[in-house]
């Protein structure tokens, strides 16, 4: 389970997150939607301490930390329970696909090279890249790079995987297959928080949808509740803007 309580974050004088609280159940898939600039990326980055929140509390499994005054040790512990899938893939440029997946297994989890290699190869095979293991990121297509990014996250067997718009840098024809793969990850029962603009995916995979706007959670609920019966006026306007009338479907 992952729980965020009253998280606040400012950049300079701009308060970007104004007290965000969310809760994600074990094995659940939470999709965060919202207009550009509403703070979705910042929220994910605060969870993984890629950005330091100003205040708030974070519970991840058996660890609870005060985000304002937590120490290096806590940060490392949280990061080791989270994995992050980046919009721009974030692969290590000096390492092959296989080495990218192995890196955390050997350096962080202290697994032997043989074991790490076995797990990495299995996971790359699982994402459909068994023939690209020795390629450097520069020699992989965007879709393939994101598969490596997903494999790297999954191989770490984290408590939660954070996805920040994992398909928005991809060519349109690659979006579908990448979403299919993320669905496959969800089916493994891994807890996930996914920021995306792919509403059909949200409807299909999420068991919780969170709508954020201007640094606050405006509405949270099941896909049915949020998409089909939004309570808040801002949610309604947002959905009306991004989902053409005739494609809204009901579960």
């Amino acid at each position, binding site marked *: 389970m992952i729980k965020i309580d009253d998280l606040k974050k400012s950049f300079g004088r701009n308060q970007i997150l104004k007290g965000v609280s969310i809760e994600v159940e074990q094995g659940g898939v939470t999709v965060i939607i919202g207009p550009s600039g509403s703070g979705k990326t910042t929220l994910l980055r605060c969870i*993984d*301490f*890629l950005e330091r929140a100003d205040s708030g509390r974070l519970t991840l499994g058996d660890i609870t930390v005060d985000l304002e005054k937590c120490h290096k040790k806590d940060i*490392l512990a949280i*990061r*080791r329970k*989270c*994995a*992050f899938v*980046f919009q*721009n893939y*974030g*692969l*290590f*440029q*000096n*390492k*092959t696909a296989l080495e990218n997946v192995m*890196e*955390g297994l050997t*350096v*962080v989890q202290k697994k032997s090279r043989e074991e790490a290699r076995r797990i990495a190869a299995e996971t790359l095979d699982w994402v459909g890249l068994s023939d690209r293991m020795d*390629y*450097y*990121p*520069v*020699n992989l297509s965007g879709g393939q790079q994101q598969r490596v990014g997903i494999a*790297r996250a999954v191989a*770490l067997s984290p408590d939660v995987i954070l996805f920040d718009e994992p398909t928005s840098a991809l060519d349109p024809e690659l979006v579908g297959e990448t979403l299919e793969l993320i669905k496959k990850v969800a089916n493994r029962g891994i807890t996930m928080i996914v920021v995306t603009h792919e509403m059909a995916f949200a409807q299909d995979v999420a068991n919780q949808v969170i709508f954020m706007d201007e640094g606050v959670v405006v509405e949270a609920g099941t896909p049915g509740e949020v998409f089909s019966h939004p309570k808040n006026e801002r949610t309604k306007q947002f959905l009306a803007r991004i989902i053409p009338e005739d494609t809204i479907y009901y579960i």
Partner: protein
Amino acid sequence: MGNYFDFSKIPGLMASTMQAFPTTVKLVVWSLIFSLLIGLAFASLALSGNKVLNAVAKGYVAFMRGMPTLVLIFILYFVVPVYLKKAGINTDSWSKDMFIIITLSLSSAANMAEMMRSSYLAVNRYQWEAAYSVGMTGFDVFRRIIFPQAFGVAIPILGNNIVALFKATSLAFSIGALDLFGKVKLISGRLYGLNRAELYLGVAVIYWVVCVLLEWATKRAEKRYTRGRKALTV
């Protein structure tokens, strides 16, 4: 004058000149080590968030860039010891080689600092985030992800800096140190200026061959450390 260019003299003169080669190598190696250490210190200052420290590093680099090496040698060899003596430090026992090493270290350190600073910044900041996200410590991120990439960027610059350092050792003769060129001056004096052309051509060839070898080594090292940067041609 009966003075014509005699190719047959060159090998013998080159052999004599090469007796000073170990001295030149010593000057290069020590200057390289110290310039990397001093450069690392200034690069760290330049990359620290502190404005004052940044200014110190910038000032040092700017000062050394504008300072002719020969002028610096004279200042450090003839002027500074006078003041050090007043401060109670006697430099009489310091060898000429030592002054050359100090000078070259200080001047090359500026180039090394710039090299380290720019190569470090050339690595995309997302590489840090990616590595932090898999749970690595800052030290591991630097050691395994950032440094190898920065090093690949730095290699050609490092190669240039070493070549420049090597060629700058030829200024050592100016205070009477016996590096390659100092040796040439010595031989030339003993021959009363005879075969000067052969002598200079010979030493030029030695410098040139070493520079070519250094460049070749640089290219090889660059290839090895930038494997992830260029598209493969398998």
